[in-house]
């Protein structure tokens, strides 16, 4: 067993520096690497390019990094829930590349899987395709989208072991499996780090080969953005 376990979030984030490109898992606030984000805020690294489906909310998730003006550029598909984000974007302080959600996932997966680029129908004929190569296959038009290049991927799983194996829970899975192994260094944080051998090899979602560092997060707030319930009859 190759041991990926590190003892602290500061050890896990060793090597981060200004102007790097990071991938961060999560959909909305679900499945975000809360502990890594807290460490990035604390470190004060700036000029960051962040690839993440969303940009957090004003006081949580990537919103914390935005608030400290540590992010230079965001690559996302939807940024609707963040006033500070919108302010920085409309004022030109923040560079934003909005791309289709499936394209975001596939550009991560391409990086993970060794494809330099992929053709997708998403965005053809729209401003997303401007300046990009297009090509016809079987009578339909596609846009060439390149694999991402990132320095670190910060992903969050439910359970993991020292070998780096990961198991996700519910829709907190989202972009995390696509980003694992898609950057030079993948840092996985888990709610529960279990002994090696405790996870059934049949049930592992991401094999440890895609992970360089793993640690158990100190705490998880797991904030809910839209609490919707029905009443008992």
């Amino acid at each position, binding site marked *: 067993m190759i041991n990926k376990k590190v003892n602290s979030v500061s050890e896990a984030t060793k090597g981060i520096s200004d102007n790097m490109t990071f991938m961060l898992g999560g959909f909305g606030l679900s499945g975000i690497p809360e502990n890594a984000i807290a460490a990035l805020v604390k470190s004060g690294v700036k000029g960051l390019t962040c690839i993440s489906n969303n940009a957090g909310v004003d006081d949580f998730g990537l919103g914390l990094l935005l608030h400290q003006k540590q992010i230079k550029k965001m690559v996302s598909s939807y940024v609707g829930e963040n006033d500070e984000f919108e302010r920085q974007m409309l004022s030109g302080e923040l560079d934003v590349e909005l791309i*289709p959600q499936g394209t975001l996932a596939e550009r991560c997966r391409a990086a993970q899987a060794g494809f330099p680029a992929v053709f997708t129908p998403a965005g053809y004929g729209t401003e997303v395709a401007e300046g990009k190569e297009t090509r016809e296959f079987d009578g339909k038009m596609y846009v060439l989208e390149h694999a991402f290049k990132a320095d670190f991927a910060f992903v969050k799983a439910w359970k993991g072991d020292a070998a780096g194996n990961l198991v996700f829970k519910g829709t907190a899975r989202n972009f995390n499996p696509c980003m694992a192994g898609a950057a030079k260094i993948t840092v996985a944080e888990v709610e529960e780090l279990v002994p090696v051998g405790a996870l059934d090899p049949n049930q592992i979602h991401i094999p440890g080969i895609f992970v360089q560092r793993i640690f158990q997060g100190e705490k998880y707030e797991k904030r809910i953005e839209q609490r919707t319930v029905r009443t008992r009859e």
Partner: protein
Amino acid sequence: MLDKTGIAKRIAKEVQDGYYVNLGIGIPTLVANYVRDDIEVEFQSENGVLGMGPFPFDGEEDADIINAGKQTITTLPGASFFDSAMSFAMIRGQHVDLTILGAMEVAENGDIANWKIPGKMVKGMGGAMDLVASAENIIVAMMHTNKRGESKILKRCSLPLTGVGCVKKVVTNLAVLEVTDKGFKLLERAPGVSVEEIKKATEGTLIIEGDIPEMSL
């Protein structure tokens, strides 16, 4: 004239037995409430769940189980979770049978705009561009006119596009329209709405053939 619930009820009639359906945010989300209960349908949410159920009971909500609108949800027996790449494999690979989404504008050539108002609202396209570029069967749920009374059913979209030539059918508070080579074909009128009223509210080419039936809900 229909309200948002009425639009959802009319679209629910388009959902057939055995369909996998992706519902967008807003009016489309309401469609799930009105699908006939004698058919089997599974709802997909692009953040990574198939087999979505109703909202959880108070106290049973789980931060790890949400829909694409970030609302807490439940799952039904037979449900599955998956990552974002696989979710869009279902969408791009045309495994999802029906996509229902909202729009700011629809044009008679099937173009749709629903993600950006330059200089004003820039929230992003989310999964909408992937959905409209791939789905064979797209129904748009929208109000026929905007708050200023201007038509949203147009000859050409004025806002940045989400997708080109992809919309097949539009259900509004006034009418059911089919997108054809020659323009919007009027299929049904909303209860109490005349053909004249629909004509007045439609900027795009409207094709009216014979008597136009009133929709049943």
